[in-house]
């Protein structure tokens, strides 16, 4: 939180500089490529992500209706964006700058590539280059595997990373890892970014007030920070590591504001008894009017008899 605030404050101070400044992407990041082919599906998925995450500043591609900010965000359909290489776009989305937020925690790598796929659909001359699956440069030829488990004694989630090559396996040491928990609208980072120890292990402290589902389950996901070194490896799993949460409906109790079936008993009673009493008395009066009518009828009959005689 605070760092973001500071970041934005710093940004405001250096606005004039930024405006004229080229957004330099480190050379080693420029060449990064998607590992899969962009197609209609990736484009559609990207469009959806774009419409939720990017459209508020960048506007609809091709329309030029982006926000008037300094520096201007730019229309993704124009050269300003399209002249970037795929790796540059990826870097900018991941890291952000100034008012452009970092989507590091918000979007997965694949999702960012989907957005790039969508953006590239506005460039007819674009030819996609595909990179083979990123493999670890630190452990060449090995497949890196992550294991996640919950240690209830000190309420930590323990990650163990191993590089498996043929039959042998070595612990992945010194790798920076982050642990995310799935929430409705995004991923919540648990603890800090941590580095695997000599055994390839790292423990993340689970906050005491982290709610899980009705069984205390949470969906967690671990990722390496440095994908170029350790490969694009992530591990999704469900762990019983959080508080058991039994959701209570907010409309369960009887209340003045609830619907009529859940009205407070005293209101129902007062209203119906009051109404019934009033109606009862009105009925009684009507009966009496009827009595007057009947009495009159019999009297009149008698008097007619008298008249005849």
């Amino acid at each position, binding site marked *: 939180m605070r760092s973001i605030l500071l970041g934005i404050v710093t940004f405001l101070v250096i606005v004039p500089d930024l405006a004229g400044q080229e957004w330099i992407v480190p050379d080693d990041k420029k060449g990064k490529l998607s590992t899969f082919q962009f197609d209609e599906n990736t484009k559609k998925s990207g469009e959806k992500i774009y419409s939720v995450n990017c459209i508020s500043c960048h506007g609809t591609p091709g329309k030029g209706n982006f926000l008037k900010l300094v520096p201007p965000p730019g229309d993704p359909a124009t050269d300003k964006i399209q002249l970037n290489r795929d790796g540059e776009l990826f870097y900018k989305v991941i890291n952000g700058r100034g008012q452009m937020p970092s989507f590091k925690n918000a979007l997965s790598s694949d999702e960012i590539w989907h957005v790039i796929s969508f953006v590239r659909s506005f460039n007819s001359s674009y030819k996609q280059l595909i990179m083979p699956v990123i493999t670890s440069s630190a452990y060449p030829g090995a497949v890196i595997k992550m294991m996640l488990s919950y240690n209830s004694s000190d309420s930590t989630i323990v990650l163990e990373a191993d590089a498996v090559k043929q039959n042998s396996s070595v612990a992945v040491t010194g790798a920076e890892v982050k642990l995310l928990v799935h929430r409705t609208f995004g991923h919540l980072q648990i603890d800090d970014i941590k580095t695997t120890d000599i055994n390839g292990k790292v423990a993340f402290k689970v906050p005491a007030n982290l709610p899980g589902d009705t069984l205390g389950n949470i969906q967690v996901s671990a990722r390496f920070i440095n994908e170029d070194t350790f490969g694009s490896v992530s591990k999704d799993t469900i762990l019983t590591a959080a508080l058991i949460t039994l959701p209570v409906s907010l409309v369960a109790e009887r209340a003045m504001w609830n619907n009529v079936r859940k009205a407070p008993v005293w209101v129902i009673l007062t*209203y119906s008894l009051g109404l019934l009493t*009033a109606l009862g008395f*009105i009925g009684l009066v009507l009966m009496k*009017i009827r009595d007057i009518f009947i009495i009159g009828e019999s009297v009149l009959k008698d*008097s007619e008899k008298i008249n005849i005689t």
Partner: protein
Amino acid sequence: MTTSHSGSTRYRERVDSVSKDILRNVRFNQGFILWMGFLTAVLAVCLFAYTIQLRKGLGVTGLRDITSWGMYIANFVFFVATSLVGMLISSVLGLIGFKWVKPIARIAEIIAVAFASIAGLIIISDMGRPDRLPNVFIYGRVQSPILWDVTVVTTYFLVSLMLWFIPMIPDLAIAKTRLNGRPAFLVKAYELLSINWVGHKKQVKTLNEAGRILLILIVPLAFAIHTVTSWLFAVTPRAGWDSSIFGPYFISGAFVSGTSAVIIAMFFYRKSYKLEKYLTDFHFEKIGRVLALVSIVYIYFNINEFLVPGYKLKTLDEIHLKELLAGEYAPLFWGVQLLGLLIPVILLLFKQFRKPLPMVVIASFVLAASWLKRYIIVVPPQAHPFLPVQNVPVEWIVYTPTLIEIAISVAPLVLALMIITILSKLFPVLPIHELAEEETLAVDGHETDLAHIDETAVYNEEKKANNN
């Protein structure tokens, strides 16, 4: 037997003379037709205004999101308030045993019936979707004061109607043989409505029982109807409405407006129906005292309502009070409080002002002020909500009623006048039987005598006389 017979003869004579005076007005004369024609023309204009509102929406009024309740609701509160007088006169004063309310009670009930029946219509004119009125009965939420209001206004109307009708049954029986030259349908209606009344002892007893039940029943109902109306405001947290004395404040105010309406009606009937013999200076003197009394009670509640928040000056209360006492609404507020409440009370303390003419002037001021008072209660508290009003067109901030809105607001008054006119042109406005009974008693001086009057005999004698 002899005394009772002489009593009954005297009663008959009295009935003859009283009914002659009172039934004189049961006719459709030219004045009636002109007056109704005028009212119909005005109503047509009002209804035309309403069709515009139906077509274009409530935007044709001065109402907007900030002040979303205006003239219509003020009008509604005024009508409910005025209808409350039926309960005050016939029930409270009648049950205490004041004999002088007898000739006034029916006038009060006519006002109650007319105003209570129209009150519901006003709410419909304020609804954005009047076509969905049935939803109130289909989906009604028992927690909503609106549902309570609908319920009690309907019940109160019914009971008021019965309180007007039931004491009139003997009159209808008396009148049905004395309606020579009136349209046949009217005679037939009297015949039907008098439900075989022959003045039999048992009938008298049953009628008195029914009347007594209603007189008692209407007290809690009347309190309920206006307390619930006050809760439409008091259940909200707005400054100026958020008051725990709103119920009694409204009820005491209702007595003021209702009593003044009755005084105006009395004056009118006395003059135009030539009833000086029955609505005497004595009656005006008495009802003048009542108006003074209820106004003093209302002043007391006013002091409570403004002094207590004025002492504490909570932020929004302060803004609200300043607006009322020294701001935009100050002329209206002081006009209402001085000309419509304080000065009338002072004047009414002097005997010479408790005469018909000065009283009708005073009552007119009080009644007009009562309407404006409802406007002050409803409108200003909405102008200052808890959070500032911003980024809206300027005409949204200040509420000014439009012509269409005013026209639609006139309609209920026209309708009420029509109902009052019809009721007092078709039926006796004063209780013939009770007045005759009272005068007989005054002469004979023995209450027991009257209990033995065999009205069946009276009736039969009349019938014989007619046959011959």
